[in-house]
């Protein structure tokens, strides 16, 4: 029963990360932008797990936990901020939230 080489997983994680970046730039809805960030984090997690597997080291998996924790914190705070923004400006379009400029 042959196994899938790590590079496959890595390429997949790279693709997902790139798509996350594109989403990050492309989306206008603040919530979906946060989702894009989550997507990137997930891609990184995949790379971590793949590396951990490749070297038969558990550290990678541990790091995945940390990434997840950070993602959770980021989501909580980020969404709270989103709610605040919506309360103040009645919009979720990030291009309409542009008061902080020159």
């Amino acid at each position: 029963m042959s196994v899938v080489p790590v590079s496959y997983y890595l390429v997949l994680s790279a693709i997902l990360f790139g798509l996350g970046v594109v989403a990050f730039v492309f989306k206008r809805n603040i919530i979906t932008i946060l989702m894009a960030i989550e997507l990137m984090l997930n891609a990184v997690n995949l790379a971590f797990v793949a590396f951990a597997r490749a070297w038969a080291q558990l550290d990678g998996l541990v790091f995945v936990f940390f990434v997840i924790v950070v993602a959770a914190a980021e989501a909580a705070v980020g969404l709270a901020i989103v709610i605040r923004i919506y309360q103040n400006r009645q919009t979720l379009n990030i291009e309409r939230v542009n008061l902080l400029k020159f």
Partner: protein
Amino acid sequence: MPILEHLWIILALPLAGAALNGLLGKNWSKTIVNSIGIGSVSLAFLSVLEAIREFSLLPAGQLSFFKNYFNWMSAGSFKVDFALQMDHLTIVMLLVVTFVSLLVHIYSTGYMAHEEGYYRFFAYLNLFVFFMLTLVLAANIVLMFVGWEGVGLCSYLLIGFWFLKQSAINAGKKAFLTTRIGDFGFTVGILLLFWTFSSVDFGTVFAKVANMPAESATQAGVLTWICLLLFAGAIGKSAQLPLYVWLPDAMEGPTPVSALIHAATMVTAGVYMVARMQALFSRAPIAMFVVAAVGAITAFYAATIGLVQTDIKKVLAYSTVSQLGYMFLGCGVGAYAAGIFHLMTHAFFKGLLFLAAGSVIHAMGGEQDMRNMGGLRKQIPVTYWTMFIATLAIAGIPGFAGFFSKDEILDAAGSGPNAHIALWLLGLAGAGLTSFYMFRLIFLTFFGRPRFDERKVHVHESPRSMTVPLMILALLSVVGGWFAAPHLLGKTDYFEAFLHPVFATYGVPAGIEQGTSLAGAAGEAGGISSSPAMELFHALTGPPVVLAIIGLLVAWWFYIRKPDAPKKLAERAHGLYKLLLDKYYVDEIYAALIIRPFLWISTNVLWHMVDERVIDGTVNGVARVAREVGGQAREIQSGNARSYATWVVIGAVGFTVLMLGVWGMVR
């Protein structure tokens, strides 16, 4: 308690006093301020005595005591320690400084009783004592320079003590700036010293100098330059030609200050410095001659100005200048001991004169012009008698302190190793003039008919706190010179012997046997076979004494016998009189030659051109450029987060391309 091990205590005491009074004294009663001020200084005096006792117990071979407390600064080979040292010279200075300061402190409690900023005054005084002691005890020239500048600062603060009086402020500034000119030379001298000996430590430097040959009297070597530069500092600090101009104005300060700082101690710092550095000076004949010449000329010159001054303190100020000239003359001709000796005696009688003058002013309710005095003899007897004794002392009447010291100096000037006839004559003339203007002062002040409205001015003797110091100083002005009595009999006087080790240690062979050589010289000068009796006779009837007597008589003739004679003389020799009265227009000349051009350059070149155009121009230009660039760059900050995200992506791509492509990492 081993004070000697902890010399710093002597410094710490007045500093603590200054700190306490200066920082906290504002709301304290005069009593507390007094006890702190006087207490700290008297404690310092006592610890000095104790230190001297312990010093005397040192093994015979040890001529000086040195202690290094901590490394102050060290940059590469340039290393300065906070180190103090004590030897016979230091002892003399310590005694003079602490004792006179103590007396002046006591005196001030009476004199300043009704002044604003009482605590401030005492804080400054204590601070001054601290710096002066630092100057004296310092074991390296940099630390000495600290004290040097410190006393300058205190002098500035105290001259401008009445900072509401414009003239006082100006006088303070003048003193500070003028001495600064000299101090510049002093600083360069220090640098040159270090550059030459790669050390600023007295011991090290002198040890290195000791095995250097004396330089020739024809062309100047490095020692000469060092000495001349250092002496420039001395000129500034000790008010010699051409930088003496600040001292007369310094009389704007309170009289105790004039007594302590501008007569007894600070102004003599230059002399002390020259004596301290004598190892270098005595190997630099040219420098020696310059010192002597400057001293002699100043002595005569200042005396001439003193002749016609009418402000009692101004007279004393010029006489101080001239006496300092004598001290330098003494050092310049190699009679360091004599110079220091005169320094000490001068500290006594000139301090006394100032304090007494202060007492007079006090009695006259602030009046300083002698023409509005007269006949005070009866009202303020203590002041009169003490001042009279001091006058006799300064005039060099035999038996009084001034006689011995001045006589030695003139002796050395006339017949010492580096003697020169011109110096001798100048000194002699100065001596005569001194006795004249001093007795003029006495006669104008205390004799004759009162020239002031007795109903307005209610003359009263000063309080005990002022008169007691006067009496003590009067006593010292009499006996202070008797160490030197044997000298009259052609023997080495005790003072010489006491200081001998200091000057002998590093001195040039020629300089050593000063006392005897002076005695011998005196004998030759007298041109008579030297037997003690003849020596005595000669000394008592020597030219100085004769001139002093003449001066006395002339003064008596002018101001007692024919009080209107001076006016006639002034009218007859009007030009000369005016010249003297206006102090040879030196201030004006300086103003014209130096100050105005300086101001002009500063204003038009430095300020309007360099500062405004170049510097401000640069700064503003930079600011303008920044503003323009920012104005363009701020467009980037559109407030649209997607654009920011794009910038992030750009950065990420750049980095990744670098990492994967260029650096070939991961690969």
